[in-house]
């Protein structure tokens, strides 16, 4: 029972494991009250739980991963930034009249090195989520992001971006302010920066809204994160004419880290703690920090021109087609 209290957002496939864990806890308490030695039984049950955990998390379907990626307790951009960096200061505004709470950024240090960090920010609860627009950034968010990247480039600080959005905000004001232009501009400019850029999909990578801060030297992605051209729900509604077919769409669209690695889009898969990042946020942050530091170190051995050329080559080779010259 205490276990469920701590974790109110239980996903279907997490339930058997959670039940077993509560049972172990109950036995432990009972034994303690009655002064019986059950350490052997507990050890067996814990081994069983470990086995179950592995079974569950090693065979997740794409739509189950999507649920994990959207888990309300999954660490957010600000959680990671606070866990991995020192001297963090959030900076605000696109200097054009907007400060988007759905895309946050600022300066800090990663292992001593000054960096500029930014990412989509989802809310912790309903109220926070409304304020953050569920992590769906507006043109002002993308313009704040590029302003901070230009700042980073000017002061020779590496750029770290964290991707976690269902997609760019689809609304009247967003169109009026040029959502398409804002994203497009970022895509082009991110190819021009001299400093290293590391992009990490921490949760949900939703379409152009994700890509708008997603052009870098390396693309990293957590094991249970997803990255998709359109939400499986939208894709199902358009291609299957049935939003209920979202699980099929999630599988067909190839949205998992493994799939994207195979397609030559993703560079590095970050393993998650055994029950997912939401079960051990600090563990996940440690894994992220190590990977970011390692990759920065490698990238900093290159010249700016080498980095830019390699960045272009990395994207240039993405795509599958037939040259059609003789078969």
């Amino acid at each position, binding site marked *: 029972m205490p276990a469920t209290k701590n974790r109110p957002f239980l996903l279907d496939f997490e339930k058997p494991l959670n039940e077993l864990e509560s049972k172990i806890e109950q036995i432990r308490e009972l034994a303690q009250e009655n002064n019986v030695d059950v350490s052997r039984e507990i050890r067996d049950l814990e081994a069983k739980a470990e086995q179950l955990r592995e079974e569950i998390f090693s065979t997740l379907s794409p739509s189950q991963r999507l649920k994990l990626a959207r888990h309300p307790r999954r660490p957010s951009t600000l959680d990671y930034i606070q866990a991995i960096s020192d001297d963090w200061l959030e900076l605000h505004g696109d200097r054009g009249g907007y400060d988007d709470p759905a895309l946050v950024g600022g300066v800090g240090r990663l292992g001593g090195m000054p960096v500029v960090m930014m990412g989509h920010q989802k809310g912790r609860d309903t109220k926070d989520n409304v304020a953050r627009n569920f992590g769906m950034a507006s043109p002002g968010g993308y313009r704040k992001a590029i302003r901070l990247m230009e700042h980073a480039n000017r002061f020779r600080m590496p750029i770290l971006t964290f991707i976690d959005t269902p997609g760019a905000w689809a609304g*009247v004001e967003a*169109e009026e302010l040029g959502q398409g232009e804002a994203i497009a501009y970022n*895509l082009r400019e991110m190819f021009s920066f001299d400093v290293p850029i590391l992009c990490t999909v921490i949760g949900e990578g939703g379409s152009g809204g994700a890509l708008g801060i997603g052009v870098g030297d390396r693309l990293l992605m957590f094991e249970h994160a997803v990255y998709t051209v359109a939400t499986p729900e939208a894709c199902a509604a358009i291609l299957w004419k049935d939003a209920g077919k979202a699980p099929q769409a999630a599988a067909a669209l190839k949205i998992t880290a493994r799939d994207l690695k195979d*397609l030559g889009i993703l560079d590095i898969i970050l393993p998650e703690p055994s029950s997912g990042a939401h079960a051990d946020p600090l563990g996940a942050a440690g894994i992220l920090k190590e990977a970011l530091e390692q990759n920065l170190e490698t990238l900093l051995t290159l010249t700016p021109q080498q980095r830019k050329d390699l960045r272009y080559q990395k994207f240039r080779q993405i795509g599958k*087609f037939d040259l059609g010259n003789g078969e």
Partner: protein
Amino acid sequence: MSLFDWFANREKSETANQQHQEREIADGLWTKCPSCGVLAYTKDLQVNQMVCLECDHHLGVDSNERIRQLIDAKTWKPLNENIQPVDPLNFRDRKPYKDRLREYQGKTKLKDAVQTGTGLLDGLPVALGVMDFQFMGGSMGSVVGEKLCRLIEYGTNECLTVIIVCASGGARMQEGMLSLMQMAKISGALERHRQARLLYIPVLTHPTMGGVTASFAMLGDLILAEPKAAIGFAGRRVIEQTLREKLPDDFQTSEYLLQHGFVDAIVSRIHLKRTLAQLISIHQPFYPINAGVALEGNLSMNHEQFVVHKEN
């Protein structure tokens, strides 16, 4: 003849007339304007570049017709014509992607949704890409991305103005993330073209949406749009569903974008070629002589070269 018979006869002949007309529309002899409903001889319409003679509505044009409209006769040289799509995800919704591809290839005689090449536009050399909405809604997958990238790279190497006529519903979902990444890939190629101080003009036609808007459609040095084209990022219906309200008629039209500062000019198709030529020739003096100069060059240096040319 009784009044009743006269009426009956008249109705009969009217239906016959209508049937005759419908057959001729189906044959393509006549075309009905979807805006004002007036019938026009398709040949007359073609002469007028598929712009309604009655109400100025711009009807859809396929890529072949568009190339004929913009490129001087006998100067079109296609690039990378043979690149064709594959089915990288083994994608199947209600129909396999492979079947859809075959179907559209049969219908349009194109391999995918874009044609690219070089040619002269009023005597000025250009690298031109034309998207074709007839092919899966002009959706952008690996082939569209690759062909446009190769076109832009060719333009960069040969110091050419790049023009892309956009007509697309957005990314091609059947190729998943490979499609999304084409947005970045093309934007990267455009960054290099830009570094070489070369001119890029996208022409936005009906409709230009989604991932195309959020990449090369909005990255022009100058951006032109045809009148009353639908241009936007999110689909109108998606926004209506989230907001649960009807949107104004002019929402996401060329005129709306002009009003909000996102296109430079709305140009009637009748004047499109002339306007493009005008813009290219105005920028021509600043063009580098070769790519090497382009990379290090600056405006004043290139301007001097132009002055020398003029005196010669």
